């Protein structure tokens, strides 16, 4: 439907409302989901007072606007920096991203960074936003879930990517169950706070991580000759966010 299509008349709108009301979900939380949430709550409680973030400083309306503006400026800055990185090339590092992959990676990272803390902090002190076009899409990419992901999950970033990959190699204890098997969070870690939709990760040994505020998985591919490639895959999509080649051991 385009913006210019006529709206349904009152009778049709009312009929749709009735259909929607009839389709309301009225059953309680399923027991398995309830048990899962109870387990997560128990884990949060075990974290003690550190699980609850301190109250933000004296809020007022002007601060809300400032936060929104700062977030937009940061997004623009990160996008500019990402573009510069793409132009200058990242060949100096040992990251083996192709140009196109690097571009998508950077933009995705910027999106995640720009949206950091958006899901929850804004729930109380939101930045007002215009109603996006109804069909607006293209907001894909990793979401800002870092605040909900377990604090014990390794955080890695672009700057120290190779060093992180080397450091975590010994922690890659989980073997991929198969090249075509989809693996979810439960197959990666016992930590219930880590959320990762089932993802086809391919062969290798796996380490769940947080990258750019979103869940991801480091996959240490089987060594071939003297080298071993390592890919950072996005949870849910299996998109390659980063990759690097290490000397085989």
């Amino acid at each position: 439907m385009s913006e210019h299509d006529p709206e349904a008349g009152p009778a049709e709108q009312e009929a749709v409302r009735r259909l929607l009301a009839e389709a309301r979900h009225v059953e309680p939380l399923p027991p398995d989901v309830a048990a899962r949430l109870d387990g997560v709550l128990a884990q949060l409680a075990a974290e003690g007072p550190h699980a609850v973030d301190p109250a933000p400083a004296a809020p007022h309306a002007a601060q809300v606007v400032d936060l929104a503006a700062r977030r937009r400026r940061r997004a623009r800055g990160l996008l500019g920096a990402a573009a510069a990185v793409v132009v200058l090339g990242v060949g100096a590092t040992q990251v083996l991203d192709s140009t196109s992959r690097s571009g998508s990676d950077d933009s995705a990272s910027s999106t995640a960074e720009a949206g950091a803390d958006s899901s929850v902090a804004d729930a109380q002190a939101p930045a007002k936003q215009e109603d996006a076009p109804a069909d607006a899409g293209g907001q894909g990419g990793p979401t800002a879930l870092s605040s909900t992901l377990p604090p014990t999950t390794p955080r890695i970033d672009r700057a120290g990517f190779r060093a992180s990959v080397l450091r975590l190699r010994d922690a890659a204890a989980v073997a991929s169950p198969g090249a075509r098997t989809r693996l979810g969070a439960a197959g990666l870690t016992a930590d219930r706070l880590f959320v990762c939709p089932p993802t086809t990760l391919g062969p290798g040994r796996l380490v769940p991580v947080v990258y750019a505020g979103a869940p991801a998985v480091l996959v240490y591919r089987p060594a071939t000759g003297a080298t071993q490639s390592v890919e950072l895959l996005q949870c849910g999509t299996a998109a390659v966010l980063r990759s690097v080649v290490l000397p085989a051991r």
Partner: protein
Amino acid sequence: MSETDGSHHGTDARTDAELIAAHVDGDHHAFGELFARHRDRLWAVALRTMGNPDDAADGLQDGMVAAYRRAASFRGEAQVTTWLHRVVVNACLDRLRAAKVRRTDVLPDDLEEYGGRGSTVSATDAALDPADLTVAADRRRQVLAALATLPDEQRAALVLVDMEGYPVAEVAVMLDCAVGTVKSRCSRGRTRLAALLVGLLDDAGGDGHPDPGNRPAPRAVRSTHPPRGPPA
């Protein structure tokens, strides 16, 4: 909506606001009690917003963890239940945006997966005619499938306003937008649904029992002119 709206799963007499304050002050039982009061309705919102139970569970968990961690940011400007809905809906919408690239087609599957798992209170009335139940289930399936085709923000608005029955002003707080934006999203969403569900609209206007016989064929383009009568 009252501050303690929602079913009470425990015996704690504290209000929602008192519970969230107690949680921030270190009472780790308080949040569980608070969430238990509202989780069924939050689940319903997450399920209808996400379109399937697996993603709904993830979205609800994200929202719950976020609310737990950020409870100190609640400043009492809205009711606790409104704030909880807002956090959960935001978490769901975040998740939908992240999944956009991998989602190709979302069809509601909760009817199949969860059809027999509800409470006995809300379970299907055995006294109803099985034929009516089949028709109702089919209608519900069509509505949910059509709902899944809407843009995320329109769907969230319709779930909160038309399905859950929250006032538009409260939904505006939940969705962090103006009241007019909520109305606009709802109106545009209903218009889309009207085009998709044209065969059901007449049923919805009656007593819930569709007339026997074939339904009219779906219209490709909705006409603004009144229907013509039969030839003389």
